[in-house]
């Protein structure tokens, strides 16, 4: 691994599991083709049956169509791992091998799993299954109901001995985890740190709550699921959920020596800013502030940024606020697309999965198209519309936002 700056923080490995592809190669190919996989969600525990026939409450989303953990993961652990846990293990497995971490001192490796309350569907199913016979509830429920079970499993399977914990920041969790990982290696706490944005496994209860809150769509496209996810489009009516999990490995340049590791990018700057607001509404001031904070830390002029990966959920107010922010901070010239339009909103995973999407586009020299961006709410932005564009990203900004007034931004530079 080569870098002229020994204090530089580099991304040296990625892992991704999503509804349009597992692993970097398949995911990149699907992104660049503009593939998506939205439908009425079928996973057990995501439909609410009222007992009436036929009424059930159904929700649109993008579910991982087929998932099988890679060979080599212990079957005894996988048996009691939740879907979120299994997908985290598989995604971390990819990132771990991508960054060739096998020979790194395990005490010098850290792990931050982004996301809280991520296993709700599995908990709902357990409650429904054992409601009438609670004394037979499996003892492992006492372990697995805590999200920290995911970081615990990952640390056991991969032998991580630096630190491992979960970190919650609503839909910014994935990027918050990445920022925490960057800070851990920048400070010297560990040499290598892995950030995982955990798969948020919604049950019908969370889906209903998010619909009732007005955050999750789609009333307008209930009969056309493939059209429902449309961030920044005039006809959007809320976010559409999508299962995903992203992992990135970050390290200080030169902290360890491993042959054959090629950095994806340098993490040049980052920022976290709160709105002092418990609610889900966005804040123009908060978003402007956090992007300026990240640019300043990177020492970048906004004009030098050539790609923005926005939060872009499909919330009407959220989308409009974000585009206004992008204009205000001087990023309107930069290419912009929306990864959520293809993979859906991963909630806790989103910031990490979209960071991986940004890094893979950087490596591919191409920008992926957007889904359903028929009438952008601001035509003057530099959209990648319905087909991919050849472009070698030099400097990128990734934005992640979350309920409770959380704003995050990260600046990446080609290394």
């Amino acid at each position, binding site marked *: 691994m080569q870098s002229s700056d020994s204090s530089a923080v580099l991304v040296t490995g990625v892992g991704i599991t999503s509804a349009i592809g597992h692993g970097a190669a398949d995911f990149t190919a699907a992104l660049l083709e503009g593939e998506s996989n939205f439908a009425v969600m079928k996973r057990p525990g995501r439909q609410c049956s009222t007992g009436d026939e036929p009424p059930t409450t159904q929700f649109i989303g993008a579910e991982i169509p087929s998932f099988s953990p890679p060979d080599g993961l212990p079957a*005894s652990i996988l048996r009691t791992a939740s879907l979120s846990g299994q997908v985290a293990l598989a995604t971390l497995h990819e990132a771990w091998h991508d960054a060739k971490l096998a020979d790194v001192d395990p005490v010098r490796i850290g792990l931050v799993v982004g996301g809280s309350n991520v296993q709700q569907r599995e908990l709902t199913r357990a409650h429904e299954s054992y409601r009438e016979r609670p004394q*037979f509830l*499996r003892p*492992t429920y006492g372990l697995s109901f805590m999200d920290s079970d995911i970081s615990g499993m990952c640390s056991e399977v991969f032998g991580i001995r630096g630190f491992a914990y979960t970190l919650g920041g609503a839909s910014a969790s994935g990027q918050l985890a990445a920022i925490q990982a960057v800070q851990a290696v920048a400070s010297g706490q560990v040499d290598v740190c892995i950030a995982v944005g955990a798969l948020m496994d919604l049950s019908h209860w969370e889906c209903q709550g998010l619909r009732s809150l007005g955050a999750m769509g789609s009333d307008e496209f209930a009969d056309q699921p493939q059209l429902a996810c449309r961030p920044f489009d005039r006809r959007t009516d809320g976010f559409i959920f999508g299962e995903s999990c992203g992992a990135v490995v970050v390290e200080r340049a030169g902290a360890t020596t491993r042959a054959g590791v090629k950095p994806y990018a340098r993490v040049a700057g980052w920022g976290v800013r709160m709105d002092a607001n418990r609610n889900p509404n966005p804040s123009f001031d908060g978003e402007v502030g956090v992007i300026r904070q990240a640019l300043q830390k990177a020492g970048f002029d906004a004009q030098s940024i050539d790609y923005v990966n926005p939060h872009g959920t499909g919330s009407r107010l959220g989308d409009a606020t974000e585009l206004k922010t992008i204009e205000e901070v001087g990023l309107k010239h930069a290419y912009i697309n929306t990864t959520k339009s293809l993979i859906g909103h991963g909630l806790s995973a989103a910031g990490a999965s979209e960071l991986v999407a940004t890094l893979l586009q950087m490596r591919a020299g191409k920008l992926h198209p957007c889904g359903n961006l028929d009438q952008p709410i601001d035509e003057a932005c530099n959209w990648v519309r319905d087909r991919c564009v050849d472009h070698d990203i030099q400097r990128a900004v990734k934005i992640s936002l979350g309920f409770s007034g959380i704003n995050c931004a990260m600046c990446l530079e080609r290394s």
Partner: protein
Amino acid sequence: MNKEDIFAIVTRHTQEVIPALRGHQFQPTQSLRELGANSIDRSEIVMMTLESLALRIPLVETVKATNIGELVNVLHAKL
């Protein structure tokens, strides 16, 4: 249900919890601990067996058993 049936249920669940034991020739004199089951695994195996038997007894009543045969005897006596 006889003891052989209960033994089969216990060993089936043991193999579910510890997949490496698939194909193992279980003996009543073997303990779950020596077969590689940690305390969580043992609780899981016993609870799965109680559920299969629809046997509503406290888990603590099974802890005196030192091997699979004794566990089967305890469960059989409670049926």
